[in-house]
C-alpha cells in the first residue's frame, strides 16, 4: 500500500512555508470555523473518539492524557509541544517543523483551545536552531495576521504562542525535564508523582504532547473523530510518520496508514525504503528509535508464531520484548550483514552514558558500567562473563529509575545480547580477528548443522 499523505500532504510544496502560501492551500480556514463553532469539550471528545495515540514514543492515548488535566484547579493551564526530538534515528518532527510550520501552529491553536491554555510553548531541540528561526518567523506572521495574540480570528479568545530552544540534552525530551528546562533550570527529570497534568509548568496543570500528535489534531476535528478512527487498524488509528535510515536505498520520512503496511513491504517497496542500498542482505532492524529492542530481520518481518508483521503499535509489540519490539517514535533503522552488533550496541551505550542526567543511582552508575564493559568487548578484551553481567545490569536498571531513560538504555543491551549473542561470544573468542581492521563482519551467523 502506497503512502497515505495526510500530515505530509504539502511537505514538498514550498508554498506551505509562508503564511500567504499556506492560506492559498486552504490553511487557517478550518481553525477559524473551529474556534467560532466548536466548544473545547466537543474537541476533547473528538480527540478521544479518534483513538489518536501519542506519537512521541510511548503511544499513550492522547484523549486520555488530556482527560487527566486537573480541571478543579484555578491555576492557568499550559500546553507544551515537545519538539526536543533527540532520539537517535528519529527525525520526523523536524520534517513537520521545518516544512509545515503553520500546520503545527494550527495544531497548537486548536489543542490549546481544547485544553484551555492561554499561553502555549513549543520546546525545540537546541541543535535545531535553524528550525527555531523558521518557527519564529511563522509565529510572527501569524501574530501580524491576527491569528495569534488578542481576540484571535475575532473569536474573543486570547492566545499566545512562544518558542523555546533547548540547550542540547537528550534528557530534555523527557516531559518533566523539558518543563524544568522551560522554567530556566537545569533539565533534570522531576520525581513523579505529581504528574504534569496536575502540577507541571510553574506548578500549573500542563499537557506535554509531541509535535506529530499536535499536528494531527486539526485533521481529526476537520474530518471527525470517528472518521479518523476509521484510518488504520484499531487500536492503531490514523497515520504515522516513520523516519527510515540505515543501509536502505531510500532513507527519509514516510507517512504510513498504521496497520496497513507490512514490515516486509516497508523495507523493500519502492514507495518506502526501497530495499538494501548496497545489495547486501539485511541483518537487523531497530523499529522505533534507538531505545526500543532490536530485532533480527526474520523476527521483524514475521512474529515468532510466523504471522507477517504489520507496521502498527500492536503488531510490532507482538511477542513482548522477548521476540517483539515497539513502534516507539517511528525512527526505523536498518542494518545489513556488514554491521557489527557489538559495535552498534557500544555506540548506543555510549550515547546513553553521555546523556544520563546523573540523578538516580541505577542509571548514573549502570549506563557507565555497561558502556565500559561494551568498550572492552568491542576491543576484544572482554570475558564471556561480561556478556551475562551486561544482561544482569540491564535488568537492575530497567524499571528502577526516575525516568524512562534508564529503560531506554537497558532495552537495547538486553535485546542485542538476546538476539545476537553469538557475535558477542565471537568477540571474546577471536580477539585477534576483531582487531583486524579488515574484519568487518562481527561473526558468521551460526547455521544448524
Amino acid at each position, binding site marked *: 500500500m502506497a503512502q497515505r499523505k495526510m500530515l505530509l500532504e504539502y511537505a514538498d510544496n514550498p508554498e506551505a512555508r509562508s503564511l500567504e502560501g499556506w492560506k492559498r492551500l486552504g490553511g487557517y480556514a478550518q481553525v477559524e470555523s473551529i474556534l467560532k463553532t466548536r466548544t473545547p469539550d466537543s474537541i476533547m471528545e473528538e480527540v478521544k473518539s479518534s483513538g489518536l495515540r501519542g506519537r512521541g514514543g510511548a503511544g499513550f492515548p492522547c484523549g486520555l492524557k488530556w482527560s487527566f488535566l486537573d480541571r478543579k484547579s484555578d491555576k492557568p493551564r499550559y500546553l507544551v509541544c515537545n519538539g526536543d526530538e533527540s532520539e537517535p534515528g528519529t527525525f520526523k518532527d523536524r520534517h513537520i517543523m521545518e516544512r509545515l510550520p503553520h500546520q503545527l501552529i494550527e495544531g497548537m491553536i486548536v489543542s490549546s483551545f481544547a485544553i484551555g491554555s492561554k499561553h502555549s510553548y513549543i520546546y525545540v531541540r537546541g541543535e535545531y536552531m535553524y528550525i527555531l528561526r523558521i518557527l519564529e518567523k511563522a509565529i510572527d506572521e501569524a501574530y501580524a495576521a491576527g491569528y495569534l495574540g488578542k481576540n484571535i480570528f475575532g473569536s474573543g479568545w486570547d492566545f499566545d504562542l512562544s518558542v523555546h530552544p533547548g540547550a542540547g540534552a537528550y534528557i530534555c525530551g523527557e516531559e518533566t525535564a523539558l518543563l524544568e528546562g522551560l522554567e530556566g533550570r537545569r533539565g533534570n527529570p522531576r*520525581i513523579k*508523582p505529581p504528574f504534569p497534568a496536575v502540577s507541571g509548568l510553574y506548578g500549573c496543570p500542563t499537557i506535554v504532547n509531541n509535535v506529530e500528535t499536535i499536528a494531527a489534531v486539526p485533521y481529526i476535528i476537520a474530518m471527525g473523530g470517528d472518521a479518523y478512527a476509521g484510518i488504520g487498524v484499531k487500536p492503531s488509528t490514523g497515520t504515522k510518520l516513520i523516519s527510515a535510515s540505515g543501509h536502505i536505498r531510500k532513507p527519509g520520512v514516510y507517512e504510513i496508514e498504521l496497520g496497513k503496511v507490512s514490515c516486509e513491504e516497508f523495507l523493500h517497496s519502492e514507495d518506502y525504503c526501497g530495499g538494501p542500498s548496497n545489495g547486501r542482505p539485511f541483518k537487523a532492524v531497530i523499529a522505533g528509535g534507538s531505545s526500543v529492542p532490536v530485532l533480527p530481520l526474520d523476527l521483524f518481518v514475521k512474529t515468532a508464531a510466523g504471522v507477517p508483521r504489520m507496521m502498527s503499535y500492536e503488531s510490532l509489540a507482538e511477542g513482548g520484548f522477548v521476540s517483539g519490539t515497539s513502534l516507539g517514535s517511528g525512527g526505523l533503522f536498518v542494518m545489513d550483514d556488514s554491521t557489527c552488533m557489538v559495535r552498534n550496541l557500544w555506540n548506543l551505550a555510549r550515547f546513553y552514558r553521555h*546523556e*544520563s542526567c546523573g540523578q538516580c*543511582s541505577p542509571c*548514573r*552508575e549502570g549506563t557507565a558500567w555497561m558502556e565500559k564493559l561494551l568498550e572492552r568487548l568491542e576491543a576484544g578484551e572482554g570475558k564471556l562473563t561480561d556478556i551475562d553481567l551486561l544482561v544482569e545490569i540491564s*535488568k537492575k*536498571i530497567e524499571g*528502577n529509575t526516575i525516568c524512562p531513560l534508564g529503560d531506554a538504555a537497558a532495552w537495547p543491551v538486553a535485546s542485542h545480547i538476546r538476539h545476537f549473542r553469538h557475535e558477542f561470544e565471537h568477540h571474546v573468542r577471536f580477539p585477534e580477528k576483531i582487531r583486524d581492521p579488515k574484519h568487518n563482519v562481527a561473526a558468521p551467523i551460526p547455521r544448524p548443522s
Partner: protein
Amino acid sequence: MPKVTIDGHEIEVDAGTSILNAARKIGGALVPPTMCYYSKLKGSGGKCRTCLVKVVAQSAANPRPMPKLQASCSTPVADGMVVQNLTSPEVLDARKGIVEFLLLNHPLDCPICDQAGECDLQDLAYVHGLSASRNDFPRRTFETIDIGERIELNRNRCILCYRCVYTANQVAGARVHGVLGRGDHAEIGTYIRSSLDSEMSGNVIDVCPVGALTDKTARFESRVWFLKPMDVHCTCDKCSGKAVAWMRGEQVVRVTARRDAYGEVEGWICDSCRFERKDKAAWTFEAPRRVERNSVIGQNHYTGLRQLLAVTEKHIAARAAVSAADEAAGGATGYGADPAALISG
C-alpha cells in the same frame, strides 16, 4: 484517613503521606532504607532508589498492582493500598542491585574513613549488599578540592544524594556548592572554588549519608565507637544549642546534632557550637545519648574486634619473649627466631 497495609501491618495515616513515612509510623524492620530522602529537607528523595517497594494494590477503588517498583519516599498512600517491602523478593533483588550501583565507584576506604561506624551506606551494604563487587574497572576519582577550614570534602565517597545541596539551600541560607556535570561524571563542586562558610554550613556533615563530608576539626581523632556520646546543651543565640558531645574521657572530641532513629537530625546546630565549643565547661551535660544496643557504637567495638586484639597481644608477647631469649643468647640478629615460630607462638 487512608488505611495502608505494609508487609501485613495496617496503619491509618493522613492523606498525602508517603509510603515511607507510613512505614516509619509502624517502625521496625519493615521501614525501607533511605540514602537520599530526608524528611527535614524539602524536595529531597527519589534519587537513590534504595527505598523501592512493590505496590500490590494501588487502592481500594483500583486494586491492580503498579507495574513498576515505586520509590516509597515520593509515592503518596491511597486508601486500601497494599505495599510489600521485605516480603517481596523482587524488592530485595532490586535493592541488591541498587547497593551494587552505589558501591560501584565508592572507594570502600572504610578503615580510614571517619564516617565508618555511623555510615548509612555501610549499614545498607551489610544488610542488602553482595559480598564481593563484580566491577573490575578502576573506580572513578575526583581531584581533591578545599571547601574551607572546617569541612572536609571527599568526592570519591560521594553518592550524589543531593542532601547537602538542599541543606545549604534551605538551612545555611546561601549555597556556594552544587552538582556539576551530569551522568557518571556528575560531581559535587563549588562555584569558582569558594568555601562553605555560612553560620549553619556545618550541618552538611550531619546530613551526608557517607563519609564525603566530614568534620575537619575532629579528623582522624578517633573511631566513633571509641567515643561516648552525651546529650548536651548550651545557650546559643544562633541555634537551639541542643547537641551531642562525643567524649573521650574528659575531652570533647567532636560535636554533632542530635540524630533520630532514622539518622535524621532533630534540630540544626550552628557552626560555632559544632566547631568551636570543644571545652567540656562550655556545655551542660544532660545524660548519655541513647544508642542502638546492637550498633557498632553501642557495642563499643566492631564484632570480633576483641578476638583480634587478643591475637595481636599474643603476637606481641611472643615477639618480646623471642627477642629476650635472643638477647640472652648473645645473638645480634634482632628477632633471631624464624617467623613461623612467632605466628605459632
